[in-house]
């Protein structure tokens, strides 16, 4: 990454900063930056507004099928952008059932698509934290005479602030760096920094311009992270963490508004495009219902553009995603443990927040930049006598980098919510740091670790951007295979691509279901 930026600024061995004037002197750059901010801010707000009721319903209420609902909620997050773009266009493009809305090629539809991807992120990062939040404070407020809304706003909402800030920063980064969805649904009028970097590198090989834009992207991402860190810090406090089983209640009439918003989000925003996709995958090109597309996955026709079957690609994807999720988990746990400490010295504090920002950066760096950067640096890196650039090993590493922030953002609110008194008490009783870790931190994050693992797995499974920019050995991952099938002329290849997308969604849902059932929760009530 750094090397790519450096390449951009070195002209004939001298540092050349002329690129700045050139890039920032053009109106197009400012339009692109404006578009990026507008889209990302709007998408963040709508995702939070719609994600909060979803988090409440999925993580605070008890109802039959909750586990399945939670697992299904993750599906939109991993669907290939290509496929979602197709589904949205089928709905609102010319000739689609919603064409009358006139939303085709509008900011609204871009924001809607970003929200489609990110509501699950909010629901999950806020929900896992909310599920373990002790609601006795809110109950106390009610007893003292506060109304339901007032009690929630003055007790629960502030307690949720760190998780909300975490979720907001994730959504903002995802939206600010989204690529395919902006181009497919908006076209060039809505170009953001990410698409512009792609245009400069791939079309013009203008590394200088791309480097300057990367830095601009960096600045925006850095600012967003700083704001979210400030929000988190101001809202962070030790909260009562309890066992999840002790929480949750049957839905009551008071929950109707949340349920209505949740149901509307699910049906209108998520179910419509996904059902469109599933229905289409069960039809032939002439519109008759058949399983042809699914048969093609197992037994590809002779003119299929793919190597082997889609099942092979799925199996490879699963293995790569497992490796990536494990790497992300190990790194993520260590990082979270470090970040959850609250040193008193200002220097250490600053160090920790810087480190926090550093972990989030892979999400804020464009996939193009990451891909080309890895290409330049991974030729016998660090003196290893091994060319990583064309190795399949690089794929899980890149995917782990992308999944790492998700892991950290899922675990950290829980870890930071642990009352330091607990640790002091343990230390007072003679436990060394290791024992404290084992007796307090690890059990408490156990459950969210299961979820974070599932999340990381799902994110790696659906990762397309960075993977597609790496040099890939013969075998393909499922999202790459889907993109190839959809972009191919052979008859039936398009349908097979849609069927493969449904398979990807099913694998994701299954993985999340497993993660939901993974209970490592051995904490007593404190």
């Amino acid at each position, binding site marked *: 990454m750094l090397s790519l930026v450096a390449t951009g600024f070195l002209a004939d061995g001298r540092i050349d900063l002329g690129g700045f004037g050139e890039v920032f002197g053009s109106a197009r750059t400012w339009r692109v930056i404006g578009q990026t901010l507008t889209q990302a801010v709007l998408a963040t707000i709508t995702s939070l507004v719609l994600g909060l009721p979803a988090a409440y319903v999925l993580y605070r209420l008890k109802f039959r099928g909750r586990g399945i609902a939670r697992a299904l909620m993750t599906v939109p997050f991993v669907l290939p952008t290509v496929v979602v773009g197709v589904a949205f266009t089928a709905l609102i493009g010319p000739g689609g059932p919603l064409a009358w809305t006139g939303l085709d090629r509008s900011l609204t539809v871009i924001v809607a698509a970003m929200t489609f991807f990110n509501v699950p992120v909010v629901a999950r990062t806020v929900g896992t934290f909310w599920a373990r939040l002790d609601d006795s404070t809110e109950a106390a407020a009610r007893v003292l005479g506060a109304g339901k809304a007032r009690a929630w706003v003055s007790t629960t909402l502030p307690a949720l602030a760190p998780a909300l800030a975490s979720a907001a920063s994730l959504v903002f980064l995802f939206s600010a760096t989204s690529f395919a969805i902006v181009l497919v649904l908006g076209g060039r009028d809505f170009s953001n920094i990410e698409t512009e970097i792609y245009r400069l*590198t791939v079309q013009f090989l203008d590394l200088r311009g791309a480097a300057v834009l990367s830095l601009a992207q960096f600045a925006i991402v850095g600012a967003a992270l700083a704001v979210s860190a400030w929000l988190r810090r101001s809202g962070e406090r030790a909260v009562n963490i309890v066992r999840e089983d002790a929480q949750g209640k049957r839905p009551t009439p008071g929950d109707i508004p949340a349920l209505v918003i949740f149901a509307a989000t699910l049906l209108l925003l998520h179910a419509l495009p996904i059902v469109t996709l599933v229905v289409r995958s069960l039809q032939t090109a002439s519109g008759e219902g058949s399983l042809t597309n699914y048969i093609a996955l197992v037994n590809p026709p002779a003119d299929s553009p793919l190597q082997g079957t889609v099942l092979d690609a799925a199996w490879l994807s699963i293995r790569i995603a497992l490796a990536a999720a494990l790497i992300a988990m190990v790194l993520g746990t260590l990082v979270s443990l470090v970040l959850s400490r609250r040193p008193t010295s200002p220097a250490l504090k600053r160090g920790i927040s810087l480190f926090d920002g550093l972990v989030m950066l892979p999400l804020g760096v464009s996939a193009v930049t990451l891909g080309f950067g890895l290409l330049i640096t991974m030729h016998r890196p660090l003196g290893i006598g091994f060319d990583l650039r064309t190795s399949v090993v690089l794929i899980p590493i890149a995917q782990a980098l992308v999944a790492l922030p998700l892991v950290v953002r899922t675990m950290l609110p829980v870890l930071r919510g642990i009352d330091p008194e607990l640790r002091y008490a343990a230390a007072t009783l003679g436990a060394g740091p290791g024992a404290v870790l084992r007796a307090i931190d690890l059990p408490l994050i156990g459950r969210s670790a299961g979820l974070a693992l599932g999340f990381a797995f799902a994110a790696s499974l659906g990762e397309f951007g960075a993977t597609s920019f790496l040099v890939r050995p013969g075998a393909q991952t499922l999202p790459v295979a889907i993109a190839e099938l959809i972009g191919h002329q052979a*008859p039936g290849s398009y349908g097979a691509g849609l069927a493969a997308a449904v398979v990807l969604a099913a694998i994701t849902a299954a993985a999340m279901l497993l993660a939901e059932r993974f209970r490592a929760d051995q904490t007593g009530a404190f």
Partner: protein
Amino acid sequence: MQHAVLTTRQERSGGAVRGTQGVRAARGSQQARAVRFTGLGAAAIALTMLAGCATGAADSGADSGAAGQAGASGSNTVTLAVHSSFPNDAFAKAASAATGYDVEVVAAGDGGELTNKLVLTQGAPIADAFFGVDTMFASRLVERDVVEPYAPKQLPAGAAEFAIAAESAAGAGTGAGADASTAEGVQLIAETGMVPVDFGATCVNIDTGWFAEHDIAAPETYEDLVKPQYRDQTVLLDPTASSTGAAFLVGTVAAFGEDGYVDYWQALLDNGARIEQGWSDAYYGQFTQGGEGGTKPIVVSYASSPAFTVNEAGDAASTQALLGTCTRQAEYAGVLANAANPEGARAVVDYLVSNEFQRTIPDTMYMNPVDGAVELPAAWAQFAPEPTAQQAHDLSAAEIERGREGWLRTLGDEIGL
């Protein structure tokens, strides 16, 4: 009391316990290390698992001596970098058998992406040979000395027509090879190292049935597309995002000149043309014959596309390519400069132009092999003929390399692409 002191100190020093607790602390951190270690161990195991399917992992250079052809480099492995829609596995098997080398294939993205990766890794190439850089980007490789000069001895006769010029000298013969003799073409291939393997054309496709049904005469030329009776009927591809779209742009520059193409594009947009990002978004998403409920009867696609719309009986196609709106692209292969195994790379390039591989091109890649002796599928000749050199609106690779960025930027500034 002592404990209280201890906790504050512990907090201040970030958890490092001193004094009487030292022993315990050491033990604690050992345990923490153990946890950490098993975690990393798990990740390492996962990676090792993966290595089982790492076809592209660097070969240690162990010579399996398959055919004893290995040259001075001492390695028997050859790596070929290709574009995304290439039959990797099948090719690796067949090429290994034919050349005696252990051929590995890595995919490095499409057109521009593949080209730029080759340019960026010039000093230490990701492969020994490449295939799949087309006319749009071919000169970029030549001008940056990414390719080793080499021409296969058994070059098919048709290849010379697509030879590209070594220098960006204005008007150097290429593309429409009508004015370049075969000998000249072979000479150019040997100088540049850019070996043509197959070719195709980007053309405007129309839904013939739609025009019959609406009782409108079908369009035939570039000029027709901006006429009022074809308003809101055309789907184009963004030339900054799709190499097919860029090929159509080149055609318009060839037809209208460097001072006329912008006005033409503006007229297209004024006439309601819709611009999509990729071929599948346009063809499947918007075209009436894409099978997905599209509403536009005119789309930028390929000369070969109508072959896929032939009916069950095999006597009619529902679409037609307008041969007056075509731009031809050849796809090139070559040996990369600084390749670890240049002999192997040359053997693989030889195999790409051999009759054995050329025969497979129509069915696997939907392109025309440069080897004219190869029989094409029957439906192609009847329903999806290629434009002739005279019909096509071609520019030389050198002209494209010189002009492309300017054209794209101009379109960006003038019509907001």
